[in-house]
């Protein structure tokens, strides 16, 4: 199966290991990975700040880059949601709405792709310890991917997955929110970390590098012994 990887700007620049894990995992599951070098960012930072014109430039570039793919897969619930939003954003813009729809229709978040398209729940991963899973907001509420990551994690050998209390509350990332509303963001991420500590998890697993940068960055600052992992890294552990 031909998979065109949209790796996301955060992974490309800051979390290269997540990208590597995604490639290795999908290859092991029989996929051929393509990586269009022209890819940049989905446009969310500008779009979510109200800069629609600037965002649309980025979005058109991404549509041109990905429209000929067979499957577009990305290790981010939030960036996948953004691709899915493209037709809505270009509504009424004839040609671009059509092209945006073509891209949106074949876009999948990584775990969604593995479970729904490849129809695999046991990827043969192994990781020892106790983990809890952070349900990121865009992936859960807007993309509607709730069960796939948990189904995959349940099959990871030696891994005990416990529910995260108050999982429905946002971690306080929110893109530019994390810097514009720093003091509020701090309260939110601290409450999230308290919940993780409450279940005494060794690992915090998530499917969005934005949330993980926020939670992980705060965990590090506070010197807590919790390891933050992207689900691609977990599923690629053997």
């Amino acid at each position, binding site marked *: 199966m031909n998979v065109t990887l949209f790796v996301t700007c955060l992974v490309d*620049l800051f979390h290269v290991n997540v990208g590597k894990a995604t490639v290795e995992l999908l290859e092991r599951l029989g996929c051929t990975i393509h990586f269009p070098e022209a890819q940049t960012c989905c446009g969310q930072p500008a779009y979510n700040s109200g800069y629609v014109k*600037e965002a649309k430039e980025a979005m058109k*570039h991404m549509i041109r880059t990905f429209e000929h793919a067979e499957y577009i897969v990305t290790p981010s619930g939030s960036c996948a949601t953004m691709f899915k939003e493209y037709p809505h954003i270009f509504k009424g813009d004839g040609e671009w709405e059509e092209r945006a729809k073509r891209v949106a229709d074949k876009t999948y978040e990584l775990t969604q792709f593995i479970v729904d398209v490849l129809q695999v729940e046991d990827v043969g991963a192994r990781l020892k310890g106790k983990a809890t899973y952070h349900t990121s907001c865009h992936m859960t509420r807007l993309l509607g991917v709730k069960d796939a990551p948990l189904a995959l994690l349940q099959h990871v050998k030696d891994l005990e997955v416990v529910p995260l209390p108050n999982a429905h509350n946002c971690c306080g990332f929110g893109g530019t929110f994390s810097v514009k509303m720093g003091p509020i963001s701090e*309260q939110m991420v601290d409450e999230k970390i308290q919940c993780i500590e409450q279940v005494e998890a060794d690992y915090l697993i998530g499917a969005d590098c934005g949330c993980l940068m*926020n939670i992980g960055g705060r965990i590090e600052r506070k010197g807590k012994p919790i390891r933050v992992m992207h689900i691609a890294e977990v599923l690629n552990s053997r």
Partner: protein
Amino acid sequence: MAMKINTGQFHERVEKGIHNTFMRGAVAGAQERLRTRRLEAAAELGNWEQWRALGEEIRQHTLENLDYYLMQLSENVKKRGGHVFFAQTAEEANEYICRVVESKQAKKIVKSKSMVTEEIHMNAALEKLGCEVIETDLGEYILQVDDHDPPSHIVAPALHKNKEQIRDVFKEKLAYTKTEKPEELALHARHMLRHEYMTADVGITGCNFAVAETGSITLVTNEGNADLVTALPKTQITVMGMERIVPTFEEMEVLVSLLTRSAVGQKLTSYITVLTGPRDEGEVDGPEEFHLVIVDNGRSDILGTEFQPVLQCIRCAACVNVCPIYRHIGGHSYGSIYSGPIGAVLSPLLGGYDDYKELPYASTLCAACTEACPVKIPLHELLLKHRQTIVEREGKAPISEKLAMKAFGLGAASSMLYKLGSKIAPTAVNPFTVNDRISKGPGPLKAWTDIREFPAPEKERFRDWFKQRGEE
């Protein structure tokens, strides 16, 4: 603008909220209780998503035909012997209400809970006339007795107070001598209020839903206070926002079901009161005179715009009860009587961006509000529309942000610029990097690193790794 509460800058109000440990505990507890109850009440119906879709359809249909239904309502109220006044502004509404009160030479007014009378600051206008205005909803009563402390939640106005604080307020202001037991506190308020109902000249209520077909108004309460406010005084004035209307009883029933389940997780509240006009011949209670004041106050400016869906709101506060921002800053931080996500959308529309420009940014766009809304208002999308308006039409965004976004637009739309920028990024932040971490970031990174570590950009980007791997 009348709906404004609390002075001071947004960030100062937030600081105050964040440091109010008691309030935060109360809000977090209430959020968890109300969220669970709402989910249970929704599950009990079985087909909640269909109910939501129906609720949305009813609200959208009514707003599309608002002029028609308002005319119908007005005619039917008049047919039943009531008076109707359309107020374009808060001032017009208050003037009319004051005129009615003066004509009755009224001194004492009892009120049941109403957001729109808060919005137009009606109490202050009546007090200026020398009238005594008494809130009869227990939460509102507590706040009024406590030197007019503003409400912090649209359904539970005194959510930010605990029973010990209420006991102290009652002791100081109402010669209360008993304990902080809620039953004893409520009983005391009940005794005090009972006397007020009996001696009031005018009763004033809000309106949950006006029924156009019959000219009726519907009030949803748990305390029964609205029944006494409407049954005992000789004159009744009902004040409603112009969008709070349904075509017939059939739609009212659907919306009341959505409202009570979403607000407090109840199938029905203790009292759902429907009133049609003044007392008829042969009836034993009800007012001799009935006035309906329909308030615009900026609402018709929202009609027909991309913000119209906000007028679908039925004031259940389900969005407030799931909002992770409200959870930590509380209602007073919003600076408006409308707090939480609905307040962040509505306040800038009714009160302007000068006072409320920060509110659309007080959201992570987590969409918990949109998911909870029983009439499917796309709240997080409307917050985005506000941001877009602030940037594009109001020109109120900071210059530094504009430049950064301009650069983003250029960089993300050109693979060449992106590649170049990402290549030099590790070198650019090198002076700030220790052990692959940035702990004290420059410029926009500072706000991030005030709280958290920031990862230094990796020397080998993913794209470099992938390319090299292909070449091997």
